Every structure is written in structure tokens, then in C-alpha cells.
């Protein structure tokens, strides 16, 4: 085993050697600009870019011309929301955005609010699933966009995307779905699911960093977007800038592999996921799964291990690379807003740990992890005054705390 064991595949993944191999020539011999129309260097690059476009399109069941390359998931989310807001402002000024969306969506929505749009933040239930009845009620004739992600990046919960798409269609509202955390792990069909805009990212599926895409529907309806980057008019004018050919090649290959291996890999990841969950649950009390028990991505296991603070868990299991929703471990020093949105109290976020599995993880690594987690939690609970109090039967919610 290689240490630290990498169980943080939701943050990023290692580039698959098969992806890297296919990319390499496009840094050297095949260095052409895909926009060069007058010589073989350009033709070859363009041909390979088109092949990648098709590979990506196949993964989500769209046409290759509906793929717009960007610098990654964050840019795709920015382009989708800002692009729609600028073009459709005449039609309406209202957006509906899920409370558990990635920051790349939430922060863009907040910016739109500052420039005069109204945003409704749609609540989720305690498993993280969007409230569709609330969604139906919130749509008005001024609503131009619904932004609800596919699988959640922290808890893995999968929204009922096809139902959301249906509601959006019935009411004539565009549906933007952020799939950066879930593409390639679960089947996706933008046609069947009624998705108008879909954000994708390569580095979550063993492709390179710095490349992503936005699916932009071409018909029924034809979605129009104002670009956020102006220039030579690449990508149907929606995203100027010389195409990052080697990264696009890697992205295409990563999608092809993800699609070819999806069924077997999904089953394997679920097995690792269940194994770790069961091992932890059978050895420790006061543990909770965060997210939906079954409507969830196969590669995420988010648990709260009560009475032990997340950063101290990470410090205790320092030979395993994972992440936590604890305030101390986030860039903002705020506990995870995703876990808070589940409504079970902020303590849940402080004691949370997210394991995210990937193609290169083995069962042996999971066995080691389970053992280390159990040892560490047991040790840290011996240090925890809260665990003592719980054992004495004291309800922590009824205690008056002396806050700082």
C-alpha cells in the first residue's frame, strides 16, 4: 500500500495512465492550434478535438456540437448562470438554486442577486434531496433558470434529476445541472432527463485538471448564452480562447474509459463504500450516515462520528487522505453549509468525515482505513468530555454552554 492512502477522490483524482499516454503527443509533435484552418497541424488538432467532443457527448447522450470546452467545472457553472442571466433578463429576473449546490453555483447566484436578480434557495430534506413540491410552488413567470446539481460533492445525494427536468419543461424554465461530481460514475442522459445545461469536469474522472465542459442544448429549446470570455469566437462564440488540445484529448479519453467501465466500477465502488460503512457502524456507537442511504453516488461515504471534532480525526488518521466538513478544515472556517442544510444541527458538520473512493483504491486500503478510523475515534472519544456526558445519559442539547 502507498501512504497516505488517497480517499479524497472528490477533491481530485490521479490521471489514469491510459489518459496520460493519449495526451502526450499533443504536447509535442501534434502541437497544432485546433482553430488553424490552413495546414495539417491545425487539421490534426481539430480532428482530435472533435473526437474528444464525441467521446464526451456519448457519455451524457448529447450531440458533439453541444459541448463547449471551458477551464473546468467552476467556469462551466459561471458560464451557465451568468450567460443565461444576461441573455434572458428581458424574460425574467428570477433564479431557483439548491441550498446544497457547489460554491461555484451558490457564489455566482449571490453575485446575480447583487446585480438585481432575485434568487430562491430551494431547501432539501434531511437526506439532501431537493423538495420538488417547493420547487413547483416557487416557479413564477419571471423564473428563467433552475440550478439543481446531479450528485452532491459532499454527501453524494442524487437529486431526482429527470423529475426536475420535467417540471422545468412544463413551466418553460431552463434547467442547469452541475454534474462535475457525478459524471462518469452514474448513467446520464440529458435528453431523457430534460437537462438544458450540464457542467462537467475532467479531473474528477482521472483526466487532467484545468479542463471542463458545458453542455448547451441546441434544440427544444435552443439555449443561448452570453459569453463571459470574449475573443476570437471559439466554441460557437460562447467561450473564446485557444483550445487546450492536450487537456481536451485527456478529457475525451477519461470519458471514454468512464463509460466503458461504469457498470463494473460502480459495483466495485459500492462494495468498498458499504464495506467501510459497515465496519465503522459495527464497531462504533453514535455514528450517522450523511446523505441518502441509496440515492447516492457510489464513491462517497460521508459520516458524522459524534463527539469527535473533524480536524482532530484527520490529524489522528494522518496516513489516510480524506476531508471533513468541520469548520477548522474548510477554507472559510465555517462548517459545511451542505451538512447544515440537512437540518440536523451544526454539530453534525463539526464531526463529519468524507471518504471518497476511486478507480485506484483497493479493498486492502479500505480494511486498513476501517481499522485506523475505529482506533482513532475510540482514542479521541476517551479524550472527549461530550462522549462521557452522552454515556452518562445527559442530553447535550439541554446543557447551557459557556460560549467564547
Amino acid at each position, binding site marked *: 500500500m502507498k501512504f497516505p492512502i488517497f480517499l479524497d477522490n472528490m477533491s481530485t483524482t490521479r490521471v489514469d495512465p491510459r489518459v496520460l499516454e493519449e495526451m502526450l503527443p499533443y504536447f509535442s509533435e501534434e502541437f497544432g492550434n485546433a482553430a488553424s484552418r490552413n495546414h495539417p497541424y491545425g487539421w490534426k488538432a481539430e480532428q482530435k478535438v472533435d473526437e474528444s467532443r464525441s467521446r464526451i457527448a456519448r457519455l451524457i447522450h448529447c450531440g458533439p456540437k453541444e459541448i463547449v470546452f471551458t477551464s473546468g467545472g467552476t467556469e462551466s457553472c459561471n458560464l451557465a448562470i451568468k450567460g443565461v442571466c444576461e441573455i434572458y433578463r428581458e424574460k425574467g429576473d428570477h433564479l431557483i438554486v439548491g441550498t446544497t449546490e457547489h460554491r461555484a453555483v451558490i457564489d455566482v447566484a449571490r453575485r446575480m442577486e447583487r446585480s438585481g436578480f432575485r434568487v430562491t434557495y430551494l431547501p432539501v430534506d434531511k437526506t439532501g434531496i431537493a423538495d420538488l413540491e417547493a420547487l413547483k410552488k416557487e416557479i413564477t413567470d419571471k423564473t428563467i433558470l433552475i440550478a439543481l446539481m446531479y450528485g452532491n460533492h459532499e454527501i453524494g445525494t442524487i437529486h431526482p434529476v429527470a423529475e426536475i427536468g420535467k417540471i422545468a419543461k412544463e413551466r418553460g424554465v431552463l434547467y442547469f445541472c452541475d454534474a462535475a461530481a457525478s459524471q462518469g460514475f452514474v448513467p446520464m442522459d440529458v435528453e431523457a432527463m430534460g437537462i438544458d445545461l450540464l457542467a462537467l469536469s475532467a479531473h474528477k474522472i482521472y483526466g487532467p485538471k484545468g479542463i471542463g465542459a458545458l453542455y448547451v442544448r441546441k434544440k427544444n429549446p435552443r439555449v443561448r448564452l452570453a459569453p463571459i470570455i470574449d475573443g476570437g469566437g471559439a466554441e460557437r462564440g460562447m467561450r473564446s480562447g485557444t483550445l487546450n488540445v492536450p487537456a481536451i484529448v485527456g478529457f475525451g479519453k477519461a470519458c471514454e474509459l468512464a463509460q466503458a467501465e461504469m457498470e463494473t466500477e460502480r459495483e466495485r465502488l459500492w462494495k468498498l463504500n458499504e464495506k467501510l460503512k459497515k465496519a465503522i457502524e459495527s464497531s462504533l456507537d453514535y455514528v450517522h450516515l450523511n446523505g441518502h442511504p441509496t440515492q447516492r453516488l457510489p464513491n462517497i461515504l460521508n459520516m458524522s462520528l459524534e*463527539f*469527535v*471534532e473533524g*480536524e*482532530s480525526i484527520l*490529524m*489522528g488518521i494522518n496516513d489516510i487522505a480524506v476531508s471533513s466538513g*468541520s*469548520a*477548522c478544515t474548510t477554507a472559510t*472556517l465555517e*462548517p459545511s453549509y451542505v451538512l447544515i442544510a440537512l437540518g440536523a*444541527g*451544526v*454539530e453534525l458538520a*463539526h464531526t463529519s468525515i468524507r471518504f471518497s473512493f476511486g478507480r485506484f483504491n483497493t479493498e486492502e486500503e479500505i480494511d486498513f482505513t476501517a481499522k485506523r478510523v475505529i482506533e482513532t475515534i475510540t482514542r479521541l472519544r*476517551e*479524550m*472527549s*468530555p*461530550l*462522549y*462521557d456526558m452522552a454515556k452518562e445519559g445527559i442530553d*447535550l442539547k439541554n446543557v447551557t*454552554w*459557556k*460560549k*467564547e
Partner: protein
Amino acid sequence: MAYSDKVLDHFNHPRNLGSFDKSEKNVGTGIVGAPECGDVMKLQIKVENDVIVDARFKTFGCGSAIASSSLATEWMKGKTINEAFQIKNTEIVKELSLPPVKIHCSVLAEDAIKAAVEDYRKKKASVAF
């Protein structure tokens, strides 16, 4: 974030971990923080003739919070309660090389020390009357 060697040492080898019976006359207990803030510290002192002869801690919190309270128990032992009351969070910051985002851990430890001493003083006063 990288942790200082001293924080890691206290985290991996906590000093004076445990509890005293808080109903005992010569035991002072301070519990500060709150679960929703992500840290709760319990510091206890055992006092004889106004001298802290022993100390214990239990902490729910990050590594720096655990290290701050572990260090606090070490520093309190052998001090009079008045001396212990003077321990400053800045001394803890310096000893453990805590980064700015972890200063609140040292503040919490100082608060816990004061709370334990005050609890002892209150107990002593109520026994006297």
C-alpha cells in the same frame, strides 16, 4: 496546514488526560466552549492549601484545542490557584507555535483555567460559611 511538533506531541501523547470526581471538595471544574462551535474543554484541578497538586483535562476539539488544554494541565500543576489564574493565552500560543486561526483554542484554554479556579474558589467559600 502543518502542525508544530509540540502540538503533535500533545495530541499524540496527551498529558493528564482524564477526570476527577467533580463533587469532591478540593476539586475545581471548568467546562467552556460549546458543541456547535466545534470545541468544548473540561479542565479540572485538585487543590491542597491553595496549591494545584494535580490536574486533568478532556477536550472535544481540533488538535490545537487538545494540545492547548493538555499543556494547560502541565502548567497548572504545582502553581497556586492565584498563579494559575494569571496564565495567559498568549503564552500558550507561543509555546505551541499556534497559527492565527488557532488562537481561539488558546483563549478557550485560558477561559477553562479561570473557570476551574473560580469553581474551586466558589466551593471553598460555600464550605467556609
